[in-house]
Every structure is written in C-alpha cells, then in structure tokens.
C-alpha cells in the first residue's frame, strides 16, 4: 500500500505533534510488552501490613486495601487493557470492513438488509448494548472483546460501505474491469487500498474508546474479574474508597486510562496526516 521510501518521507515531513503522539504510542506499547518484568512488586500478592498507604518513595502511587502496589498494578494492567482493546478493534475492523465492502459493492437489497442490521445495532445506546452482550456471554475476557467488537462494528461497516460505494463507479475501477479483473480482485486490490487509510485512522480513534468500553464493563463487574490488574477494576475499587479519603486508588489508574485514550486519539490525527494520499 505504501512503499517504505514514501513512509520515511512522510515521517520527515510530519508535524512535531504527530511525532510526539507516535513516540508516546511506542512508549505505551513498550510498557505493555515489558512492564511486567520491570515493576518492583507483584501486582497480585496481598501485603496487609502496607494496606492503603498514600503515595510515598517506596510506593509512588500508594497501595490499595490489600496492600498491593498501585504503580505495579497500573503498569501490568497496560498489557491486558491494550490487548482487549486491540483484539476488539481488530475483530470489528475485519468483520466490519468485509461486511461494509460487500454491501457497498453489491448495492441493491444486500446493501439494504445489511444497512438495516447495522441501524438496529446503532439504535441501542452502545454501552448498554455492550453490557447486555457481555452479561449474556458470561464473565470472561473474551466476552468483553466480543461485546466491544460488536458495538464498534457499525462504524467500520458504515465507513467501508460508503467509501466502497463511492468508488464502485470510479474510472480507475472501470479501468481494472477493462483489464479483466474479477469483482473480488477489484474490491480487494483496487478499491480497498484507498479505503484502508481512513479505516486505520478510525481504528486508532476507536482504540481509545475500546479501552474505555472494556474498562467500563469491568468497572460495573462484567468482564475482567478481580484480582486481575485492570484499569477499570482499579478505578471501580478506588471509587468505593474515595469517600474515606484514599484518593490515590482512584486517581492514578484513572489518569493512566485517560492518558492512554488521549494517546490513541492523537495517533489517529497523526495517521490522518501520514496516510492522506493527497498530502506530500
């Protein structure tokens, strides 16, 4: 889709803000990959002697009611939260773009039926729908992934549908016809390379939302279960203790969650700049 030389060129021509966003993303991914080997404490084993300690040199983010180090838990949770969000986005990206491409290319009744189906999903408040799906599938990480994927699917399906539909009659698509390409190869080889870049932007923006969604499901007790370290559970735990003054239990996981969402949003903007074929 993009040759290396032109990616390197675009990287050089990028705005500094985009570069910072990509650097932060790299850092976030690094933390997810190797964070569990670096943390000073075991995120799961309780230490009742040091329960509910405010931030101090030994525990920079303080400890929770079981005496677990919050910094260690926040860092270790990165991998799980990103993995859930990434898996969910990947599933909805693939399923949504295949469905959308099919609808956009076929047109007619296929398009109408798929369109109605997607409208039906969109008719629910998305988080409520996710709660329903996760509750129906039972408490597990995979049900969080599936629920998040299903509620995100309409965005990809709609966008792909409209992009494919718009390009179906483009002259360069007809030129591919003239060279004897089959409809399947026309969609995959000639249309999708133009559709994937905006989908990547959408995915990145969506990652933040997926993280929030996964954390939200855990927050209300669906999905990931304690004692697993997960940002949503930690925020949920912290929220119950905030009245008694243990603010650090709530603030640090919440802040990290916020930063992660923000990074993906910035990366989405950066991708928009990099992938736009009309920009040099």
């Amino acid at each position, binding site marked *: 889709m993009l040759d290396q030389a032109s990616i390197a060129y675009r990287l050089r021509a990028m705005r500094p803000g985009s570069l910072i966003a990509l650097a932060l993303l790299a850092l976030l991914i690094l933390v997810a990959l190797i964070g569990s080997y670096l943390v000073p404490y075991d995120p799961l084993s309780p230490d009742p002697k040091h329960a509910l300690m405010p931030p101090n040199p030994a525990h920079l983010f303080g400890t929770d009611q079981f005496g677990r180090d919050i910094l260690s838990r926040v860092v270790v949770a990165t991998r799980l939260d990103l993995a859930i969000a990434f898996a969910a986005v990947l599933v909805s990206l693939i399923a949504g773009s295949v469905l959308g491409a099919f609808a956009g290319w076929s047109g007619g009744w296929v398009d109408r039926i798929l369109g109605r189906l997607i409208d039906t999903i969109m008719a629910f408040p998305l988080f409520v729908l996710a709660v329903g799906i996760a509750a129906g599938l039972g408490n597990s990480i995979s049900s969080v992934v599936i629920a998040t994927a299903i509620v995100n699917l309409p965005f990809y399906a709609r966008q792909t549908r409209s992009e494919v539909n718009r390009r179906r009659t483009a002259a*360069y698509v*007809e*030129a*591919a016809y*003239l*060279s*004897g390409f089959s409809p399947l190869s026309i969609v995959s080889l*000639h249309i999708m*390379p*133009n559709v994937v870049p905006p989908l990547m932007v959408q995915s990145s923006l969506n990652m933040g939302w997926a993280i929030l969604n996964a954390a939200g499901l855990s927050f209300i007790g669906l999905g990931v279960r304690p004692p697993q370290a997960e940002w949503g559970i930690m925020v949920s735990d912290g929220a119950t203790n905030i009245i008694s003054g243990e603010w650090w239990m709530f603030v640090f996981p919440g802040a990290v969650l916020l930063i992660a969402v923000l990074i993906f949003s910035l990366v989405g903007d950066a991708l928009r700049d990099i992938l736009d074929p009309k920009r040099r």
Partner: protein
Amino acid sequence: MSALLQIAGLSKQFPVGGGRMLHAVDGVDFELKEGESLGIVGESGSGKSTLARLIARLADPTAGAVRFEGRDIGAIPVRKFAADQARRDIQLVFQSAGDALNPAYSAARNIAVGLGGSRLNTETRALVEQIAGEVGLDASLLDRRPHQLSGGQQARVGIARALASEPRLLILDEPTAPLDVSVQATILKLIDGLRRSRRLSLIFVSHDLDVVRLICDRVMVLYLGRVAEIGPVDQVLKAPRHPYTRALIDAMPGRGKPVILAGEATSPIDPNVVACLFASRCSKVNEGCGKQRPPLISVGSDHQAACLRL
C-alpha cells in the same frame, strides 16, 4: 480491410422514474474497419460517452449488437465479459485522466493494471518502463503518485495503461478535454503516432471537430443518441449534408457567421418515435419532419445522413 467492429441497432435506455426512459443511445449502426479511426462528435447529452462505454463493454446495451470480429460481444453481460478472450482487445482511455488513475498506486502500478496485475515484479516493471517510454513518460516519473503528475503526464499514464493490454481497438473519450492546447498538441501527436506504430483501430470521442479532423478518417455526428451523419471526415466537414452538422461546423470559431440554433433541444426522455428529433431546432424544418423518423440514407460514397430534407 474487413470490419473489425459492427454496431447494429445499438440502444441504451436509462430509467428516470415514473416508468419513463431516457434514450441515451437510440438505434446506432456503423462499422469500423481494421486500422480505421472514427471520430464521434456531438454536444453534451448526445450520448457519445454512453456509446463509447457500450462499445468498451462497461455498460450493457438495452438492445442491439456489438459485433467484434463477427462475434456479438454485446450479448455477454459486463460482469461475465471480464473473463472473455476479447476483453483485453478493447480498451478505453477515460475522459479526465486524473480521476481515472488509482490514487493509492504509483504511476508504474497504474500502468501495470493494464497488464492484468497490480503487483510489480522485475518482469512487469521492465514491461511498464517499455510502455512508458512508448508514450513519452520519463521513467523517473513512474514512482510518483497520480496527484504528483501534471495533467499531460496523467493523460500519458492513462494511455499507457490502456496500451498495456495490447488492445486492437482503442476508444478515447475526450482524452484531451481538460488540457491546455500546448499539452493537447503533444497528446494528439502521441495518439496519432501510436495508432500507426501499433496499427490500432480508433474510436475518438470529442466535442472538437478540428481535433477529429486531425486524428480521424471518418466522423460520426450524434444528436440525441441517433446518428445524424457519418462519412469521411474531409467530406463531412467540407460538404455537410445534415443541418445539424452544418450548425456544428458553423459554430466553430472563425467560420463566418454562426447559425444560431433556434428553439430548444427535444427532451431525450421518451421522445416521439415518429418524428425527427432535430426538428425543433432545424432551419429547414417542414411539416413532414414531424411525421417520420428520418432513416440514415446514402448521400455519397461511404457518406450517410439522416434527414428528410436532403
């Protein structure tokens, strides 16, 4: 020379709602011999682009035949025709070259589409460079994306892609319309040169009679989807027989006082099938023109016109 292409009774109608039909192309007949070049001229709405798309087999005709080397390829649905042996023999160069190139691909990969692949390996790259050379496109431009090329360069890429299929019939739909005259001149010379070197048969759609005069052996004048006049280009331009052809020629700048076509064009939506469609604007009209569709009749060697008042 035998007929490479025979068009018989070719029609294309589009539904416009309420059960009404727009007759874009309406019973067109003509033949194209091997190696010949035919210009198709007409105003916007004359159906010239639709006709080009029907012959290029990008659209299915409502009625009539498109016989290529004697075989009616018009009867094969467009989606099935993609796998037909004749598919690559007929190529179209699109109107605005910039929109006709895939923005996600480099110039080289756009040309490779015409080879039937879109991946570039060493072998296809060599072929692409060879064709690019043939159309006067510098190899250093091949890695650029379409938006980084000038209008003339885009036009060359579009022509190269069509040539890559090794076509025998090349249809050009206003290939120079958005270009400056200086660029148009080089593209026209290129087309003429390719026609000779590759022994191509050409169908050249244009609104410019002067361009058609330079490129084509014969010219066909379309009016509301029907052939008004067809014949050798010099003969038609010097001695047009149809009043519409006359009006088109007189409207060319510098041809003395243009005949201002009075009245308004008849609607192409469900037109009267027993009247001349040009009657509403014609200077020679009489009552007979409203009672009969003028047939295409011979008015000279290889020269035909469809007018009741010849």
